[in-house]
């Protein structure tokens, strides 16, 4: 805005105003803006790239061992946990991710994420009533992860699993949400 007022003042130099469309001064001003725009972009684009790196990165599921299958009694559902494969050294306790392992029989498993499908609170297993209950808004799920009651829009998130050499592996490493549920169960509605 100062340039405008300067233009009105008589100029000290010998340059007389010409009817030309672009004066040298205007050109230099544009050049100044242009150079700064380029320099700004050169610095700014990497900054934005750094900021948004997690937005554009995809995090494929990874195979993680949950230990020998003998850890899980048949017909029971037990809490297990695994080390986040993508953890940092300064993650502390948060690197340890829990999940519910249901061993139906032999090598037939269901491994559920701890997070309620409603808003992500940790569901708790009740052996006697064979229900998972959520302490936040009262969602409940049956033994096989199906929706039983309450606001959750679908059954529990289920990790893909495999058994190799009597060791249970699951494919995980993400926080499951409705956007990335890991399985292909359909919502209730």
């Amino acid at each position, binding site marked *: 805005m100062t340039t405008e007022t300067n233009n009105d003042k008589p100029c000290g130099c010998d340059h007389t105003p010409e009817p030309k469309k672009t004066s040298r001064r205007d050109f230099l001003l544009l050049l100044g803006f242009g150079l700064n725009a380029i320099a700004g972009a050169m610095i700014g684009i990497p900054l934005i790239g750094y900021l*948004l790196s*997690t*937005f*554009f*990165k995809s*995090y494929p599921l990874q195979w993680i061992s949950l230990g020998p299958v003998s850890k899980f009694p048949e017909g029971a559902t037990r*809490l297990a*946990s695994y080390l*986040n494969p*993508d*953890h*940092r*050294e*300064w*993650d*502390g*306790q*948060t*690197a*340890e*991710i*829990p999940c519910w392992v249901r061993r139906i029989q032999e090598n037939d498993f269901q491994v559920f994420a*701890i*997070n309620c499908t*409603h*808003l*992500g*609170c*940790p*569901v*708790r297993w*009740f052996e*006697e*009533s*064979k*229900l998972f*209950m*959520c*302490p*936040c*808004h*009262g969602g*409940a799920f*049956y033994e096989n992860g199906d929706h*039983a*009651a*309450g*606001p*959750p*829009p679908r059954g529990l998130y289920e990790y893909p699993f495999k058994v190799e050499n009597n060791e249970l592996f699951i494919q995980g*490493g*993400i*926080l499951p*949400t*409705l*956007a*990335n549920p890991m399985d292909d169960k359909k919502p*209730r*509605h």
Partner: protein
Amino acid sequence: MNGKALIQALNGVYEWVDKRLHVTDLFNHTAGHPIPKSSASWFYVFGSATLLCFMIQLLTGCLLALVYVPSAAEAYTTLEYLTFRQELGWFLRATHYWGSNFMVGIMLIHVTQVFLFGAYKYPREITWMSGVVLMLLTLGLAFTGQVMRFDEDAYWGLGIGAAIAGRSPMIGQQVVNFMLGGPIIASETLSRFFTLHVFVLPGSVLALVALHLRMVLTKGINEYPKPGQIVRKETYDKEYATIIKKEGIPFFPHGIWKDLVAASIVIGGILFCVLMFGPKGPLGEPNPTQIDTVPRPDFFFLWIFAIAALMPDYMETFMLLVAPPIIIGLLFILPFINNTGEKSWRRRPIAVLSVILIYLALGLLTYLGQTSPWSPDMKAWSGAETPREFVEGRSPLELQGLAVLQNKQCRNCHAIDGIGGHRGPDLADVGTRLTKDQLVRQIIQGGGNMPAYGKNLSPYETDALVAYMVSLHPKGELPARDSTIPATPAPLSVQEGEQHEAVGAH
């Protein structure tokens, strides 16, 4: 050196400085700016009180940052250190916690007062809009501040945030990853919330406060509205200038003393809460495998927690993702929807009514969020006792039924005489509401937000459970009966009460 000479010397120094720094000029344009006499009112202290709270937060925040380490591995340890070992660390934590509560609360009063006094109307649109953004930033600070207290509530609160973000269409996963700084809640999540809480949001608040105050100076503080004084674009500026000319007083010292008194009351209030109630938490360690936890948000977000529980699930995504931007957008453009006209709340019944409704709704939702009757009580099945009158006089089978009721976690959702979870109906008088057949059907098939227990109860367990529940009716009240089966006539008053319940058993 005598006094006169000293004053002369000091005056000289002042003039020298003023010639270079233009302090007098600055003062006249800021603290000394004229305000309408009517605006030197007790209703006008809330803005400065909010700012005062923010200053307290800046100060205590800086001091807490001397010790706090924003790393998932260390944050909890440093919180415990601050609370229990660092001299006056608890005092700092408590002041920061209560300061935030006071800030949000006083800010809400400020917004309400501005709204009711019509101060958002011409020509103070930008003042209002910057205020709306300030309100959002303050709520953002309150939410990110919860995460700084990196305990189990903070951890699962982040999970809830991610679950909400994951509901956004198309780019849900990207938004979750961006919010968490990775695919899972971890140290980088804490770091980015720290950055927001400590750098980005307070910086933005400072910038916007500058704009907000600048608008107060350029367009003047709102005059105390009188009923019948209509704002018109063509005449308002002149009218305001007349008011200032006729009855304008300098803000300093004639207006500011009320703000100063209010400020000391606010500080006293914070101090009182600090000394009486102390800091909040930290609760349990942020250990995800420790799932024996009942995550709850801080006070000011309890109403959102309640909405998430009470919404029918098909409108939930809409309520969580679409409604807030619409509401905020409406607030933001309010000065353009309603730019002129009456300012006084006495002539604006719709404005008053909407304020009352909004606060009633928020109050009710907060109350519900506090009591959260929709949450199962996870320890009730093994811990909730049964009042003597619901145990005594029962047959062995009925007692086994009560044992089944406990063992099968029914008490997590169903209270007996108020003891137990409150998600489902209290069972103290269930025998007067449902017949034996209806009870069997409800237990086996579930329904009405109750899981089906068919697979998990043996026939004997069902028999025992139902036998016990049939026995649950207050003395003198008859058990429910099937209206399709003729029964011996009961007293009229009792019959009426049970008629509507005892239908559709077959």
